[in-house]
């Protein structure tokens, strides 16, 4: 790619924390050709969103664009006055935010919002022309263009439709560059697949250069032609998708790839120990050095330069050749023994559940054997969380029998015997919500001990320390508050709180969906070892099909409150019998699939 025909050229971008001058982003350079999609991948805190916003000349509160250049055609974005930049946005470069629900004005009809963009940029000469453009935009994003639909309010649309309106607004004035900031996070795989298709078609059809910011390597792999991987504010590897995934040459990229669950072949996920350094704590040498298995003394001396290792493929590692030659170390496939037919620890017999007068669970019959991990898979609204909460006694509007070792369970946890409350533990989806922000980690973890009283008072501190170690944290965490912990650490604390009860059934409700892939891998690794060592039965609720491969023995697929398919992991993921399961599988972005299509 030559610089002169690129739609946007970014050079030496440096963004700092206002006041302190600490780097958030440093030395970021790339260019995107018209019609090309560049994927910008990184975990939370890597600075990817900051870079995305900087392309529009915008920085979030507290951040300041210090130096560098962002050039779109003849326009140098960073040198313009804010007033001129505002006119630029939407016309020359536009932005699709992560959460469409909060980006659209809930008080305005969507037609009004679409016309507003055109009017703001004086696009089209007359009202009729603008109306025609609105209709055209709607067709481009595969939404109905009739007046009745345009008169709807954002809340009347589904998440996928809202995001498509976001795309329509972004593409409205035919910009040359578009920045998409994780636009499919929070959407179901099927919806995500449609939105990704729309993005790809629009970008190629209109020759728009797109920067696709995401934490999801698989999504980026299916969509982007080239990928840039960010770590601690710098691009550490940049190259065509196929090269990057097949011949990744930076240790971090390789570790990321290994951390991603794969649809084919259940491998143990390998997380990356430690966490990414925050601005101000970054080492003077290579930022990944403390976590890198290839690290040598020389790595600490200076930040390695981004240098070409192959055609169009740049990498920021002094040992890239060795790393490239070595390839990512994949772990062995998980051996799967058959499950012996023993008395199941949890039995569900024609369980129904209602929510606000509607029946959301229909006739669920399930058995979970001791030491078995059963995955419950489904899209949002399929009822999987309701089912998990019913078992835990957190959803009271339920009928049909749920029994633990033969004893029928009351609907509400409070009405269950203490022994059963202790034996069935629940880990919540969002570690930011499941820990009381006003209590210390010690208070949080020891809370069950107060309730069940099965540990003597003077033993409490020792038990808390033990549990913290069990989940790979240290005893020093006990005096901290949840807000001093990262998302992965919080989820470990939540797991520790469940483990201190010495449960025999652990219900995990989407426990990794709020976490980065490398953290997700580490949590799954932890749960897997706990399940094996403690002989826990586990109900693992997730929407992430590839993840199931790495942890579960059996899968139950849910759709519209019913179990549509139930069977062994290999059988369901390789030869699904139900139509819904096959659709779910084909819509799931997978790295292997991305590689196959990239090669052909």
């Amino acid at each position, binding site marked *: 790619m030559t610089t002169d025909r690129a739609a946007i050229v970014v050079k030496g971008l440096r963004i700092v924390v206002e006041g302190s001058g600490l780097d958030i982003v440093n030395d970021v350079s790339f260019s995107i050709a018209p019609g090309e999609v560049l994927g910008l991948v990184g975990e939370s805190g890597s600075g990817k969103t900051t870079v995305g916003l900087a392309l529009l000349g915008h920085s979030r509160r507290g951040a300041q664009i210090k130096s560098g250049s962002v050039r779109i055609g003849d326009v140098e974005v960073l040198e313009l006055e804010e007033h001129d930049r505002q006119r630029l946005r939407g016309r020359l470069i536009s932005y699709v935010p992560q959460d469409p629900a909060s980006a659209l004005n809930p008080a305005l009809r969507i037609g009004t919002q679409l016309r507003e963009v055109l009017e703001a940029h004086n696009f089209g000469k007359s009202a009729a022309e603008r109306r025609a453009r609105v209709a055209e935009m709607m067709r481009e994003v595969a939404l109905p263009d009739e007046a009745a639909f345009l008169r709807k309010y954002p809340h009347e649309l589904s998440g996928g439709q809202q995001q498509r309106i976001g795309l329509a607004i972004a593409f409205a004035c035919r910009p040359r560059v578009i920045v998409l900031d994780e636009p499919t996070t929070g959407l179901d795989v099927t919806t995500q697949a449609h939105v990704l298709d729309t993005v790809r078609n629009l970008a190629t059809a209109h020759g728009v250069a797109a920067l696709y910011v995401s934490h999801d390597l698989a999504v980026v792999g299916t969509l982007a032609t080239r990928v840039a991987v960010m770590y601690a504010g710098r691009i550490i590897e940049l190259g065509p998708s196929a090269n990057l995934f097949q011949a990744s040459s930076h240790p971090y990229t390789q570790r990321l790839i290994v951390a991603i669950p794969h649809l084919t072949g259940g491998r143990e996920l390998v997380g990356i120990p430690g966490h990414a350094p925050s601005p101000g704590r970054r080492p003077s040498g290579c930022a990944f050095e403390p976590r890198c298995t290839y690290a040598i003394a020389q790595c600490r001396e200076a930040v390695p330069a981004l240098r070409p290792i192959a055609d169009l493929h740049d990498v920021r590692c002094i040992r890239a050749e060795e790393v490239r030659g070595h390839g990512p170390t994949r772990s062995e496939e998980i051996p799967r023994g058959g499950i012996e037919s023993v008395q199941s620890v949890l039995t569900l017999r024609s369980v129904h559940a209602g929510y606000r007068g509607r029946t959301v669970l229909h006739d669920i019959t399930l058995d979970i054997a001791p030491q078995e991990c059963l995955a419950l898979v489904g899209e949002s609204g399929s009822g999987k969380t309701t089912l998990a*909460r019913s078992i*835990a*006694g*957190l959803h009271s509007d339920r009928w049909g029998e749920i029994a633990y070792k033969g004893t029928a369970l009351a609907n509400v*946890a*409070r009405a*269950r015997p*203490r022994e059963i*409350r*202790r034996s069935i*533990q*629940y880990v*919540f*989806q*969002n570690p*930011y*919500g*499941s*820990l*009381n*922000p*006003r*209590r210390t980690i010690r208070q949080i973890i020891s*809370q*069950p001990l*107060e*309730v*069940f009283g099965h540990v003597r008072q003077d033993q409490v501190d020792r038990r808390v320390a033990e549990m913290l170690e069990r989940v790979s944290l240290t005893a020093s965490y006990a005096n901290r*508050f*949840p*807000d001093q912990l990262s*998302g992965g650490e919080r989820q470990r604390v*939540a797991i520790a*709180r469940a483990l201190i*009860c010495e449960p025999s059934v652990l219900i995990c409700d989407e426990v990794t969906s709020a976490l980065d892939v490398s953290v997700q891998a580490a949590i799954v690794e932890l749960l897997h070892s706990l399940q094996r060592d403690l002989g826990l039965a586990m109900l693992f609720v997730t929407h992430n099909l590839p993840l199931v491969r790495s942890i579960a023995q059996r899968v139950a697929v849910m759709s519209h409150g019913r179990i549509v398919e139930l069977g062994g992991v290999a059988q369901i993921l390789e030869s699904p019998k139900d139509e819904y399961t096959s659709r779910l599988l084909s819509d799931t972005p997978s790295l292997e699939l991305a590689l196959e299509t990239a090669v052909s």
Partner: protein
Amino acid sequence: MPGALFGTDHIGQDVWSRFLSGGFTILSLAAIATALGLILGIAVGLVAAYSRNFLDDVLMRIMDVILAFPQIMLALVAIATVGPNPLTIILAVGLTTMPRVARVTRGASQPVVERDFVAAAEAIGVPRYRILLSEIFPNILSPLLVEASLRLTYAIGVIAALAFLGFTAHPGAADWGLMIQENYIALTVQPWGVILPVAAIALLTISTGLIGDGIARASAGIDRTRGAG
């Protein structure tokens, strides 16, 4: 008159000394009444928010009924019936403060009740009162601190107004509200008897308000909810 800095009133009492001592009654009564209103209001609000059923409706409708009457009216009726003594004033002001605190508490608690850590406590069977006190209450402290200072401001105003209307804890004792009432007829002759207590009440209410403002700003970060999302 020598020795009397701000002169004397119509029956020869030293205005300065009466002014200095008059603040004690109003401050202590207002503080106790507010505390009473806060305790009752917080209890009602927490129970209502956590119950999420008919109890919530019943409690809040009762609060609405009390709220429908102006605070000073209810206090007047109570005091006119029972007679003005410190206990009646505290009860009257405290009980009329309760529904306002209850509404704020319930409003602040509602989002907290839905958080997962409350469900986590329920799942292991933590007693209800413990959930209210150690899970929910600490998370609504900052709005409550602001509310407390606001309610104190109102309590000072109501108690001063009651005194002005002649309903004091100790008739004849020094009291800012009473001082204004006794001295306003002689305003042109001896202005200090009015100016001093008026300025004191104004200063007290304004500063209580400012303290509340300060608390609101200082407590913006104490929720420890960074990154909650």
